[in-house]
């Protein structure tokens, strides 16, 4: 399984990786990006199974990145999970209407992460199901 993690903070990216490993994704290959533009490039290069992204990033934020990839047929159903400090119910609705699979608040909790990803697990067992 290949997972793209986009956040301008290297610490935040490491925390997401650790939480994913604790949640059961210990065999995943992680591809990192420091902003939305870099994440777009990495998505096109690596063909990931999932994307985890922060909202506020320099150059291109998470919302613009999500909007961009949803314009491409190959990525219309790619699960994109937002992990953001600026989260509340109103923001969650806004992001889901844009096409986010899930919106989780920082600090990330492995149990909450596992619960949010539960619908994806039967589909992503070793091959692309999205």
């Amino acid at each position, binding site marked *: 399984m290949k997972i793209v993690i986009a956040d*301008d*903070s*290297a*610490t*935040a990216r*490491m*925390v997401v990786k*650790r939480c994913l490993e604790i949640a059961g994704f210990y065999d995943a290959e992680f591809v990192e990006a420091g902003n939305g533009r870099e994440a777009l490039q990495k998505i096109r290069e690596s063909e990931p199974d999932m994307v985890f992204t922060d909202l*506020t990033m*320099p150059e291109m934020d998470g919302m613009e990145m999500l909007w961009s990839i949803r314009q491409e047929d190959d990525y219309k159903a790619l699960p994109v999970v937002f992990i*953001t*400090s*600026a*989260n*509340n*119910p*109103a*923001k969650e609705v*806004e992001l889901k209407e844009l096409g986010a699979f899930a919106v989780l*608040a*920082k*600090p*990330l*909790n492995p149990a909450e992460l596992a619960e949010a990803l539960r619908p994806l697990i039967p589909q992503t067992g070793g091959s692309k199901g999205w």
Partner: protein
Amino acid sequence: MVERVSKALMRAVGTTLEQMVFMEVLASVEACSRKAGDDVWAILDIHKPFSGRMGLVMPAELVNNILDGVFTEPPAFGEEPPEEPSFTDQQREDTVAELLNTVAGQLLALLVPEDNTFKLGVPERGSGDYPGLEQSDCYCFQAGEKEFCVEVRGDAFLTR
């Protein structure tokens, strides 16, 4: 500081450090006694739903301990632990900025009604002397036997 804000800040700081870096946080019951030293700091602006600023300043030694917990893999069974890891100023500043970003989000989530969105700025960061925030409230905490401080400024924090 208004009691509701100070309680929310304690909860925000505690949740952030416990969940993000597995550190227990205690609120300092006495007046802030930490002295300026080898510090790492970050400051960010709050843009919505009100204007404000928050600052976080931590001793470099505490940040090194946090980084060690986040980035250093534990040794395999029977192996010696790695030599004392060294981290750069950039890594320390990035960590403090991310902690402040998370604390600010947690604090606003506790204070702002659910139907409002909020917007935070990108943190300014640095090492050495902390510039501080004018006309702010300072709240001190302890983690790993080291004291660190969070500053909060904004009229909305005084009236909520």
